[in-house]
């Protein structure tokens, strides 16, 4: 595990898995996938595997969501790890990220 992986499901739904080490050094790659995903109507982000996360990573997600919502998309969470939810809570970003309460099994 490590890199963000993009999986194509036809042309309508795209799933993006966030890396285990989701921190400042890994963000360029994630950003590229997210920018690309802005053109796709339905995106599912999977944060279940994230073990380490920092402010820069969450800031990236916030920026992505803002633009996506502005474009009329509805990015959905496929999962979010405890580490991500805790970090988002500390930074007051739970609402902005619309994180799911618990990780779906």
């Amino acid at each position, binding site marked *: 595990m490590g890199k963000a992986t993009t999986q194509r499901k036809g042309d309508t739904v795209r799933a993006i898995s966030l890396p285990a080490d989701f921190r400042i050094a890994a963000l360029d790659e994630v950003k590229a996938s997210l*920018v690309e995903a*802005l053109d796709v109507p339905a995106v599912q982000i999977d944060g279940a595997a994230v073990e380490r996360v920092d402010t*820069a990573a969450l800031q990236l997600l916030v920026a992505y969501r803002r633009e996506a919502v502005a474009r009329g998309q509805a990015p959905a969470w496929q999962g979010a790890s405890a580490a991500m939810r805790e970090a988002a809570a500390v930074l*007051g970003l739970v609402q902005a990220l619309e994180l799911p309460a618990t990780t779906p099994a």
Partner: protein
Amino acid sequence: MSKAALAQFQQVFIEESLEGLDTMESSLLELDNGGDAELVHTIFRAAHSIKGGAATFGFPEMSSFTHEAESLLDEVRSGKRAIDGAIIELLLRTVDCLRAMFARAQAGEPLNDTVAEALRNELAAAMGRGAPAGAVQARRNVDQADAWTIRFRPYAGMLASGNDPLRLIRELGGLGELTVTPEFDRLPATLAALEPGECHLGWTIELKGPARRADISGVFDWVEDECDLSIDARHVVTEAAPPPAAAPAAPAPAAAAPVADAGAARAQREASAESSSVRVSIDKIDGLINLVGELVITQSMLDTFREGEIDAARLAVLEQGLAQLARHTRELQESVMGIRMLPIASVFNRFPRMVRDISQKLGKQVKLELVGEQTELDKTVLEKIGDPMVHLVRNAIDHGLETPDKRRAAGKGDTGTLTLAASHRGGSIVVEVSDDGAGLNRDAIIGKAVQRGLISSGEGMSDEAVADLIFQPGFSTAAVTTDLSGRGVGMDVVRRNVADLGGTVTIRSTQGKGSVFTITLPLTLAIIDGLTAAVGEERYIVPLVSIVESVQLKGDAVRSVAGGGELFRFRNEYLPVIRLHDAFGCQDAVRGIDEGLMVVVEGDGTRVGLFVDGLIGQQQAVVKSLEANYRRVQGVSGATILADGSVALIVDIAGLVRLQARRKAA
């Protein structure tokens, strides 16, 4: 940085800053006496170091306070402003205020108080900027509150330097309950424009829970330069009333505060001050290492005697080795004691300021001379000699030295001379406080003593005996009671304080010529000279300084009096008897007066007869604290270990007298 490590650095910083403040003070005083411009630079440098250190070690209040003084000094330094008496006065008060702040920092109390606040405004006003807007300033300077609003806006580059707001806010959460509201206004409009390594978020954090400003700003210590930060108290805790010691009537530093002022906080502060560190020169340490090396060599040499027969030739070598061991041990002991020895200059240095303040207040001209500042004495003694000296110096200026016109009338120069001198004399240190003032007024003292009922008349009394009267509790001859002295608290306190240190105070005075107060103190409190007394199976050490003499009495010399006490006649006075075996509950002691020995001792200004079986001999006793190893015992000041390995208690004469008085009362 861990809390413990930071605390350690803070301690070093505080000590260095206090030294810096001493430098500032002495330079300011020199400047006041017409010193050169180089002094301004010295003062500026000291202030600058304190400011920088305070900011680094988490004392932002102190840093901003010093900043005001520094700005003022900078103007003086660059010649924009001429230095005058008013500025020196202001800066001297700044030094006092900073000292008080450091004392509060050591005690873990809020740094700012109303005095600091007022002084900061004065400094700002002197700079011509007027006081900063009151309300905001007051809110900003609150140190303790139940709720805080923290606005935290990192600069874009903060993340790249490895500082993550996530960690900072998490740490802040340790101080109380947080409500974190993010701010997105700086976030780029498009994702593509976002540089992931830059920080574009900001936060407003509501912190609920009692916290100190320093704790909060401490969290952001390392990112100070990388963010905009404001910390505002929302709900202020009512602070305790400012300490009364801050009143301008107390010219001496905290340590010289009146003895009566005994709050719990003060005790705590004293405790922390007394447990502080001591600086030792590398030379002394090297000397110690050298001596320990010698000891190891001697020990290994003696070790060879474990094996083989010891014949005459080897015996001579053995004796030589033992002699060496004894010498090295003694030298080692002296060197170790030497570590605790510090020059008395640190005590003397507080006086130029005090003398200046007091003489100005009283309209007297005083020249202070310091002699023997480098004389070294034990740190513990050093810390405790300050208070008695303050009393003596105040007395000398207030009662001793005359006003200029009186001096002229007496045919003396306008300016009086006050001399503080320290020197070693045998195993003691002698500190003299002398003035060329009016001297003790024999008639006034006798008049007062008669009025107080201390004596019936002064006839036939020697000058020494008359002078000794001023050490009686509640004795003061000052016609007018000033706030400096004359409240009747003074000389008796001096004598008691010095006696607590195992020393004595004497006066030599010539009417019209001046007085000399001489304090004689032991070099160290760690070793005392004492006589070993036998009481039954037990051995007690009676400190030599408190022994007047010892006499063998006839059985009928001691009389019982009503109330259960015993008295005996000693040189025209009747002294109470304390039977040591009764006081300490010893078995098998001699009971008949003619079989034992009466040791006349003096403690707390009173003489008593101490009845013991006999005196064994004189010895130096290394004092082991009973308090540290067991607990405090009334009537005993410590313990020592005798040559045969048994433990002997050291008698505390003053404590014993008090103990006996209480028992009698009960």
